């Protein structure tokens, strides 16, 4: 149970001579071909910048999820909180104490690793009891704590087995058990579910939600899976290229993405994008997509007016579930139709771009494939992004 504060944290990995040469080559190839931005990490004279300008206040008992694509610096941030990576600059506070140079063993933090990191030569019981033995707690207390954690996680019957005799899901439970048995101030989880199959992942996800209700501690959870981020976190931190893109509750991030990246990263299927014009007609903001005009909702009108947004070319984003088939609107040719049970995902081509629409089936079987359909959307579901800096013009 603790507050965690990260102030302007930066992590730079120094580079050697070989890497310097590679960096020069990379720079050169980038200059020659700016499109091929292969590495999403920034390489400077100091080295490879993994995380920068990372500031975040995590409240006591809060569940914060760091989410982003591979190489965005989320795991590095978590490892810096754990003390497994040195912080290049910035300040890290746990419960108000500056811990930048405090050893991991003295931070009272537990971590669940992606690979579980169970000690293969110890039984499940010994794995769970290890940290308590190091703390030199009395035997009876250790026994009681291990049994309690095992009961919470339903692994009591496996206590005398070695990790190799357990399935992936069971190992995951043991890894979590080993972390919670200590009553840590902060519980860190580094992609704990990514090694499990889809079914087990769903099951474990709901178990983590239940676990969170049972143990009162601060959670920092790293994942690249936006579903995990949306379902688990009180707040989610979306990262890209070492920078925080947006911090907010899952609903805020989903409804009001701060930029094009966040809008595309959060939500499945991905948001659809159209080249559009933001115009003002009769004092109201209107988006014009290839002649299809939609008046924006009152809320959006107010926000755009407050920011005094000028008419301009924009990228219009609409989520697939907000697209409705209508008689007038944009035209698209359906290439693929995926039946999902209650709804149908239509993959359409509109002006050479892919657009996905989620259409409720309502029990009817309709064949859309190779047909041309008209579709539209309402003014309250339009997300308008600047063409220049890809930021949401409303915020």
């Amino acid at each position, binding site marked *: 149970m603790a507050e965690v504060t990260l102030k302007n944290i930066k992590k730079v990995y120094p580079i050697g001579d070989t890497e310097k040469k590679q960096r020069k080559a990379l720079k050169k190839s980038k200059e020659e071909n700016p499109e091929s931005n292969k590495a999403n990490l920034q390489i400077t004279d100091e080295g490879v910048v993994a995380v920068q300008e990372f500031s975040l206040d995590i409240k006591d008992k809060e569940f914060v999820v760091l989410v982003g694509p591979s190489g965005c610096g989320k795991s590095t941030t978590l490892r810096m909180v*754990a*003390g*497994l990576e040195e912080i290049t600059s910035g300040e890290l506070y746990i419960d108000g104490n500056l811990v930048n140079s405090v*050893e*991991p*063993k003295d*931070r009272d*933090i*537990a*971590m669940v*690793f992606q*690979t579980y*990191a169970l*000690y*293969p*030569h110890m039984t499940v019981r010994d794995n769970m009891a*290890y*940290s308590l033995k*190091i*703390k030199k707690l009395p035997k009876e207390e250790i026994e009681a704590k291990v049994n309690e954690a095992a009961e919470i996680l339903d692994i009591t019957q496996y206590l005398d087995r070695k990790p190799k005799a357990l399935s992936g899901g069971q190992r995951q439970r043991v890894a979590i058990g*080993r972390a919670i048995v*200590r009553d840590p101030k902060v519980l860190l989880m580094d992609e704990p579910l990514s090694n499990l199959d889809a079914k087990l992942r769903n099951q474990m996800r709901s178990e983590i939600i239940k676990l969170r209700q049972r143990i009162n501690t601060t959670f920092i959870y790293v994942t690249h899976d936006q579903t995990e981020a949306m379902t688990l976190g009180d707040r989610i931190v979306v990262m890209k290229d070492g920078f925080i893109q947006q911090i907010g509750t899952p609903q805020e991030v989903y409804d009001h993405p701060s930029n094009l990246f966040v809008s595309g990263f959060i939500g499945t299927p991905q948001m659809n994008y159209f080249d559009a014009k933001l115009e003002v007609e009769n004092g109201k903001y209107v988006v014009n997509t290839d002649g299809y005009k939609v008046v924006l909702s009152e809320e959006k009108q107010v926000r755009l007016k407050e920011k005094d947004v000028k008419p301009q070319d924009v990228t219009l984003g609409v989520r697939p579930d907000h697209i409705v088939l209508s008689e007038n609107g944009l035209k698209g040719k359906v290439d693929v139709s995926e039946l999902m049970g209650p709804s149908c995902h239509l993959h359409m081509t509109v002006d050479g771009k892919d657009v996905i629409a989620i259409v409720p089936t309502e029990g009817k079987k309709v064949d859309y494939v190779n047909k041309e359909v008209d579709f539209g959307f309402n003014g309250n579901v339009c997300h308008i992004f600047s063409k220049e800096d890809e930021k949401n013009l409303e915020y």
Partner: protein
Amino acid sequence: MEKMKKLSKTKSISYAKWGYIFIIPFFVVYLIFTLYPQLLTIYNSFFEYYRDGLNVIGPNFVGLRNYKELFTINNAGYVPIVKYSLNTLILWIIGAVPQFLIAMLLALFFTSTRLNIKGQQFFKTVIYMPNLIMASAFSMLFFALFSQVGPINQLLQSWGAVNEPINFLGMTISVRGLIGLMNFLMWFGNTTILLMAGIQGIDESMFESARLDGSNSTQVFFNITMPLLMPIFIYVFITSMIGGIQMFDVPQVLTNGKGTPNLTSTTLIMYLNNFLGVSKNFGMAGAVSVLLFIITAVLSAFVFKTITRK
């Protein structure tokens, strides 16, 4: 149907015979130069078969007499196999203990992500170098360095540390020490590389997890590194021990084959070698060989069992 028959015929071609053809040269060499001499050695160990002056005695079947003789007190008042086994063991321990300690320390330093030592490749090459030098050449070098007129004595005298040259090659402690030192220098690099490979094979997250669990470096070493490194460590330990049993060239060259002083540096193989000198005592040499073979086989079986243990 015709086609099917043809297909099945094609499938029945066996490539196995090519495999056998390729391994024939190895087996021929093995049979002639390894298996046959081994069997002959075992056979000879049950015979009285040696040269006395110009006469060849035997071969006469004597059963286990040669083996009994090894374990019987001789004219000089000691049991030969026990004395030379102890010599070998002591010489091995003098070299092996520092070898394991230093190699383990170096392996830990080199693999530590926290220390992140620069120029590792250079150090690894340097510490491995002595292993590439021929043992007898290394031994000759030490013989020259530590002889009574050698540079070490000259240095000590010029510094005034000693008045008379020290007879390094005439004292049990210094001869054994020098043999141990040479074995240590020749093998610690090899052991370091093996232990490093072992440590690098352990998932880094084990160490990180242990550190987060509150362990200090010593606790990480004894609770995590050592148990997980055990199969490699046992392999290194036993192979070193087998190497120790076969110790020959270093003491042979340093003491000019005499195991001086007073046979205190005579190893088992030197003892075996003595039977093959003028006397050509194939019976006794066979018995010593068979005994060594049994000891080595037992140790190897132990390593195999440890490493393949699930």
